């Protein structure tokens, strides 16, 4: 359960100009909810996620996770980074165990837990490989395993499947859904793809840019579990309806903001 109240955040650029990345954002993410976030480039999605993770300070407002105000990174939340953020010199095993190590978990225990998670994301046998030897999709699975290894209550995912080809992406989506269905936790998932947002989320948050605000929250009335037949889901008319609606909304926002892209 995450409560965000009146969150505002601005950046002062190197040239002294101030960018209002988030303005007055109110958002409540329910216990064990899978929330997806969509929005044009530069609308503040990453900023929002990092604030919840406790990685950046903000100007105004409050963030509560499980009722406790966020003051910094904590063991209750973990993050999957858009660009993987794997340590290139460490093996898969060490990368997955990294979060546990930072928390002072002993070697034997952290390796055992890491091995479990490596098996869960289907990478058994790759424990001693380094990230450079893995394909993009496999790298991202390492990032997910690392985030899950610390058994967080809240999982924050920043465009985790952005850099992955379509076939691999589909496999990863199915895997994420089945992990979530089995282990249940609160998930905030940022994406650029409407299809993905609808396929995965209980609700889709649409954000608008400059300043970053929540434009609309769209509930997704597709039944769970969804992991068994993603293909059928995609051919359902409900799915097509929501996707079309999101497409229109986003196109509007995109048109509005086209000139502003020069600045980014």
């Amino acid at each position: 359960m995450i409560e965000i109240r009146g969150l505002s955040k601005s950046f002062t650029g190197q040239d002294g100009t101030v960018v209002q990345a988030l303005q007055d954002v109110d958002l409540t993410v329910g216990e064990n909810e899978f929330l997806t976030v969509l929005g044009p480039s530069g609308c503040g999605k990453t900023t929002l996620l990092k604030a919840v993770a406790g990685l950046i300070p903000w100007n105004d407002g409050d963030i509560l996770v499980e009722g406790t105000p966020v003051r910094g990174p904590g063991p209750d939340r973990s993050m999957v980074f858009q660009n993987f953020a794997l340590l290139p010199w460490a093996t898969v095993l060490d990368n997955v165990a990294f979060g546990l190590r930072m928390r002072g978990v002993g070697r034997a225990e952290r390796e055992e837990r890491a091995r479990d998670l490596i098996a869960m994301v289907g990478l058994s046998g790759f424990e001693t490989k380094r990230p450079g030897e893995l394909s993009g999709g496999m790298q991202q699975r390492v990032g997910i395993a690392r985030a899950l290894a610390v058994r967080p209550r809240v999982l924050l995912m920043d465009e985790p499947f952005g850099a992955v080809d379509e076939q691999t992406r589909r496999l990863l989506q199915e895997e994420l859904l089945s992990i979530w269905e089995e282990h249940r936790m609160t998930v905030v998932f940022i994406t650029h793809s409407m299809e993905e947002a609808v396929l995965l989320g209980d609700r889709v948050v649409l954000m608008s840019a400059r300043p970053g605000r929540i434009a609309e929250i769209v509930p997704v009335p597709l039944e769970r579990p969804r992991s068994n037949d993603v293909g059928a889901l995609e051919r359902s008319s409900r799915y097509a309806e929501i996707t079309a609606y999101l497409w229109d909304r986003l196109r509007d926002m995109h048109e509005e903001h086209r000139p502003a892209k020069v600045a980014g």
Partner: protein
Amino acid sequence: MTAGPRPAHRPGVLRRMLDASLPYQLLTFAVFAAGWELYAREWGGLLIPTFTETVQATAELLGTAELWQAMYVSNQALVLGFGIAVVVGVPAGIVLGRFRALERLADVYLNILLVTPMAAIIPLLVMSVGFGLASRVILVTIFSIVMVVVNSRAGVRQVDPSLIEMARSFGATERRIWARVLLPGALPAIMTGIRLGIGRAVTGMVIVELLMVSTALGGLILEYRGLFKAPLLYGTIVIILAEALLLISVARWGERRLTGWARTTMARSAR
């Protein structure tokens, strides 16, 4: 970096002062000067002047024609020698970066040039080329060219190979690829090499004068040392260092002007 609410207004005057770098530079300078002064007063010998004496001597030197004459003579070697290092070193670095086979052959010699104690070969050089400007120029060149070559080579390696391929797809000749792709693409690294090279060139300029052709600035250093005029000795050194730093800042400024594009694409790289 802790999370949590922070005031939205601009940082106060005090904050901005603490963030600027000048106060820290001044602070270290003060500590350094005080340490020097104390040490020289307590334990200083014939060749260790105090800080204040050195400052006085520096000011005094700057008013003498002798110094400016020496600067003029020394810098002839610097300008010519470093000019040659750039004119020869940049293309050489580009060639080595572009053609691996050549590079594999030349690599040993670059390494040798990098590690050879030049002081030991100065006599040889002077004997073969004479005591005139030529040997000073050559030495400055040898001192500085390695930095220029090595960095230019690295710069060419950093140029995105797809840009070369793109140029070739438009039928670019090798010459055009050099002028329009390799040189501009390698420019940031080349400028770094030039900056480091300037430092080495100044060293070379002084060393050759110190060890062999005792004219100009090196001659002044030897003279002041021989006569135990410690303040003037270190005053000269201060002036040489100041010149080096000045040249490096000029190079930095030129670098920023020439390679402004690099900042937008490598926002997070060093400084």
